């Protein structure tokens, strides 16, 4: 058995071990669960040093010399040593008398994060708000739906794109009604006597339910895909290609 097939076989046994819990709790499942946890913990320790602490902190603190492989010398920044006491301050959370010290690193993190959030909020939501301002009145009634522009000349495409056809207007109206009714559901969550607002809020709740249904559908689809992938691994990659060489 060559190495790649051995690797695949161990993978298949691990999958079967982990799926065996679907039948009932058993020692075979427990064994593979512990193997998985052990591997994850061991890998984490290694990568925290190699990918995080060494490259992000140690190398920057001590600098480096030029080498034959083409790397240039970099200057070290000894002030990075201050990361140690700042980090250690976090552990004062366990001390009743001095636990206020732990708030210093938390404050630094919160401050940095909050500063970013102003820009982040704008970048994320402003295009969505402006994208919500959609025209709802058709500008032409030549045809109900927008004509197919696939193989037309550029000026014809530009002329068609400049118009709003009735079917597009209906789509935009549905969008605007959904937006307004869902907003009214959240804005008027207190007791409202006005019948129009009540009905709009109820419509908003129904539309939200439809949206949640669509989200749930895509979640189910994803879970199935993960199972299909495991079956592909077992039956195609291991059994068909690995064992039968087909």
């Amino acid at each position: 058995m060559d190495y790649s097939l051995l690797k695949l076989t161990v993978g298949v046994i691990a999958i079967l071990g982990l799926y065996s819990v679907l039948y009932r709790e058993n020692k075979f499942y427990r064994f593979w669960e512990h193997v998985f946890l052990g591997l994850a913990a061991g890998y984490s320790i290694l990568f925290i040093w190699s990918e995080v602490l060494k490259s992000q902190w140690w190398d920057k603190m001590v600098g480096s010399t030029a080498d034959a492989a083409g790397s240039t010398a970099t200057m070290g920044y000894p002030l990075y040593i201050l990361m140690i006491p700042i980090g250690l301050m976090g552990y004062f959370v366990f001390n009743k008398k001095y636990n206020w010290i732990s708030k210093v690193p938390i404050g630094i993190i919160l401050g940095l994060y909050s500063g970013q959030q102003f820009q982040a909020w704008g970048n994320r939501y402003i295009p969505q708000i402006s994208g919500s301002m959609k025209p709802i009145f058709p500008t032409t009634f030549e045809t109900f739906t927008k004509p197919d522009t696939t193989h037309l000349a550029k000026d014809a495409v530009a002329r068609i794109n400049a118009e709003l056809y009735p079917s597009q207007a209906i789509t935009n109206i549905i969008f605007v009604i959904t937006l307004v009714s869902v907003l009214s559901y959240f804005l008027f969550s207190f007791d409202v006597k006005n019948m129009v607002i009540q009905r709009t809020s109820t419509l908003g709740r129904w539309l939200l339910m439809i949206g949640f249904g669509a989200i749930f559908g895509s979640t189910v689809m994803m879970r199935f895909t993960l199972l299909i992938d495991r079956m592909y691994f077992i039956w195609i990659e291991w059994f068909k290609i690995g064992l039968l060489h087909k």
Partner: protein
Amino acid sequence: MSSQSLGDKLQSLPKPILYGILFVAATIPLFLKISVPNVPLDASIDYYATLMQLPEGSKVLIGSDWTNSTRGESKGQMISTLRILMRKKIKFAVYSTGDGQSPQVARDTIALVSREEGNGTPLYKPYEDYVVLGFYPNSEGTTLQINNNVLGAFAGRKDVSATGPRDVLQSPVFEGVKSLADFKVLILFTASSTNTITLERIKKTPLMFAVTGVMIPENSLYYQSGQLEGFLGGVKGVYDLETLMEKGVNGGGADEVKSPKYGAIPGFPGMKNLGMGTAYYPTLHVCLALLILAVLIGNVGMFMSRRGK
């Protein structure tokens, strides 16, 4: 002796039997060649068109934040995208901010596609044609720095995949790169919240996402409001991209993929375009049919037992 009515029995099928049926349904279609008709989504067409419109030899930045836990969707998305990039001789740099395992998963996937495209001999050489920059903690801070000072963000990293540790910024991939804008597009493969973090912070280059099925509704919003050039969602996105690679866009013929936004964009006929999407999509339909059947049986059972009472 059981006194359960048929309606009660239909509502309480043993779980191991249900799981067994599901495993069979998720396996058998994998061995059959079932063709599912496909009309690619606009988001997938835009994704493909953006890749195909990149000039040969240009550079792309890739964020890879998926691991084997979402291999069923993310791997297919990455394989198809890498095939296009390699066929267009586009150099790329890959970074991760979502999960420590992601860089290795990305390395394995690139090596796989590189061997496939080179007919057994790697077509793309590590460090020369692509460079894996590794994992960066604090996704928010790192992504913001990538936008503001891309060279500063990756400074000091060593590439160890080739002949020994070498400074990633000395790689030919970074030749001529001074700002994030020198990368023609940033493509993010993600199964976590790094999509939002990236969307909020990257402004200097266009964005495209490849996300899991769960994330489709959220990313549809970003796409509809013009924040993304295109995106692939779940296994449908993989199937779309494979279809587009096979047929192109507005290529003519009875089964052409039409898009009024673009002229004719060629596909890659005769090359290896189909893969995980084509294998998984029909199987997914069988599983979903089984789910609908199970819901129907449960409801019929409930109706029968209520009528019996």
